[in-house]
């Protein structure tokens, strides 16, 4: 393999990992603060993708502007849906036993998936890439889809934004405090319930955004939610549940791992995320960036 091809695979794998990161960071964030593994996270992502499809057919243009509009409009809609789920449902299960949480979020997964089936049906859909991003960039003799490069630029920006939000703002301080010291936070007069709701909504926003990116990267059908939640689990298990940095590392490991293993051992690539997850569970059960349970 020559060096150009190596970089080509690297970039291709990174762009795959970036989309995974956007979705998985939401899942990880929600777990970190709320201690709930949200099985329905993948379904919210899928709804974001389908919603992006519907809005794009309404807009009916392939301009960059309308795609940016999708990125602005769809994630808040999914966040709003998250708000509608958090207040009546999720709030009741914080701190409850895991089985109860599992029942609720799994039931939600089934309900949301069937809502998608009712609204959008079983057809394969996708969002047309905006004209500016539809072509390819010549990368040392290899063609690289412009859209993948676009994701590679936007993905780290979102990671950076998330980092700034968590570490450089008051809301971020509150969220991080809620992870480690929820009782103390409450004692200081902070409305912990609001912080939790805010975090959940942020997680849903990320799921929606991931959906928008994916809708133009690949095709979407009723299976993508389930597929993505499994990948996300692998990511957060590898990176450490609750750690956004871990989600980034985990996503890149899976994105790059699949891309490079695919080259020589095609059939192994499909099961790579599971092997990586199993290995981490054996060696370091709390994940690379995680902390052992208190």
């Amino acid at each position, binding site marked *: *393999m020559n060096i150009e*091809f190596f970089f*080509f*695979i690297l970039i*291709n*794998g990174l*762009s*795959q990992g970036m989309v995974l990161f956007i979705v998985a960071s939401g899942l990880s964030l929600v777990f970190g603060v709320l201690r709930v593994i949200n099985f329905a996270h993948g379904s919210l992502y899928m709804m974001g993708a389908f919603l992006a499809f519907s809005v794009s057919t309404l807009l009916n243009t392939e301009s960059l502007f309308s795609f940016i509009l999708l990125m602005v409009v769809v994630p808040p809609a999914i966040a709003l849906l998250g708000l509608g789920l958090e207040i009546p449902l999720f709030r009741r299960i914080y701190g409850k036993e895991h089985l109860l949480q599992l029942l609720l979020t799994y039931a939600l997964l089934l309900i949301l998936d069937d809502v998608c089936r009712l609204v959008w*049906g*079983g*057809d*394969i859909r*996708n969002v047309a890439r905006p004209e500016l991003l*539809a*072509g*390819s960039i010549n990368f040392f003799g*290899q*063609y*690289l*889809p*412009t*859209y*993948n490069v676009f994701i590679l630029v936007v993905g780290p920006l979102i990671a950076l934004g998330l980092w700034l939000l968590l570490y450089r703002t008051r809301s971020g301080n509150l969220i991080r405090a809620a992870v480690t010291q929820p009782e103390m936070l409450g004692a200081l007069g902070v409305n912990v319930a609001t912080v939790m709701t805010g975090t959940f909504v942020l997680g849903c926003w990320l799921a929606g955004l991931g959906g928008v990116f*994916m809708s133009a*990267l*690949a*095709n*979407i*059908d009723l*299976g*993508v939610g389930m*597929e993505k939640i499994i990948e996300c689990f692998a990511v957060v298990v590898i990176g450490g549940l609750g750690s956004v940095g871990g989600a980034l590392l985990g996503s890149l490991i899976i994105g790059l791992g*699949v*891309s490079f293993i*695919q*080259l020589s051992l*095609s*059939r192994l*690539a*499909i099961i790579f995320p599971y092997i990586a997850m199993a290995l981490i569970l054996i060696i370091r059960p709390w994940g690379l960036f995680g902390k052992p349970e208190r």
Partner: protein
Amino acid sequence: MKGHSKILIGILSFLFVAGMTLASNASAEDTIRIGWTADMPGVGATFYESQKKALELFFEETNAAGGILGKKLKLIIRDSKLKPDVGATMARELILNEKCEFLIGPTSSGVALAVTKVAKEFKKIVYFHTSNTEKLTTTDFQPYMFQVVPNTGIEGRGIAMFLSKKPYKRYCYIGPDYAYAHSQWDAFKKNLLKLKPDVQILKAVWSKLGETNYAPYIPTLMAKNPEVIYTSLWGGGLSSFIKQAKPYGLFKKSSITSLYDLDMMRATGKDMPEGLLGYTRCPFYAVNTLDMQVFVEKYHKKYNEWPSDWACMAYDGMIALTTAMKKANSDKSEDVVKVLGGLRYASLRGSRYIRAEDHMANVGLYVGYTAKDPKYKKFLILKDVVEVPAEKVWLPIAEVKRLQAK
């Protein structure tokens, strides 16, 4: 209270009996009832829509011209839901309750294998126009069946034969990792290597079943720099693969060969690269017969769209079935079945016949290269199309008999 419920039961039983009489009246002797076990949902939806349009067109124009043997045709549709057990139940229902004398098959081969068993049990003729497993004419053959779509054997051996005559030497494969795709690839490889031993098989890439994101797989194919990529992907999956692989420049050097039916071409639209080598089962634009031309004009006028391969073949099956009825001078399956073997009919694809041994119509495969055509604004078609005749690639009769005896 008790009196009331007695009256209610009385009314209900009256309605029930009245309903039954009405239902049996409807199946009176002046119509020929034909039941269709269609696959309506999911991946079957697009197929179903165009098959239905073609069948309705056939029934309408045949009835307007006085019907068959002086009787009107009536189409009764049930949803098999792509599930073999549902398909079998629906076939039974169509025969027993709806008094259908003939059946039209579904889209899915799995459902077709279940329906053909029911047809055999009740001795009612069924024809298959889209589901194309070769088993229908071999291991699962029964005489109350005929097939007007090139089956998997004709397709697989046909494309291998075509490719073997071309100068291509470097081959790759991509397909979903499940049993059917593995056996399809093994059979293709075997056929191709037999015909052209100096072919190089560079790499087989196996994707997840139902994969929507092909980005990780594409560079693997690029690394091998093949001339032809053979694939088991079809329909929506193939369309998304092509759309995703195009910006990688994959098709600047390689062609991808698969089933390029009209629905797939429409779904891919202008993203379809030019010059790719593909095949299809019954392309309206490449079949130069008067019958096809007339059919296409009628279809386009009525629905304002072009007929897919599935539409043409569903329609074609009705031509064969009604030709058989006229030849047998009967609208009963038990009489019509006697004339099926060797029946010649005026197919949209020209004069065709049904082989006596396996009731396979001699329908071949159409192979060509993708190209734009000013007549069709929204999709590409195949140009320089040649037909690989069924006679060259269908199973020899000895082999058919061996498989049927199993």
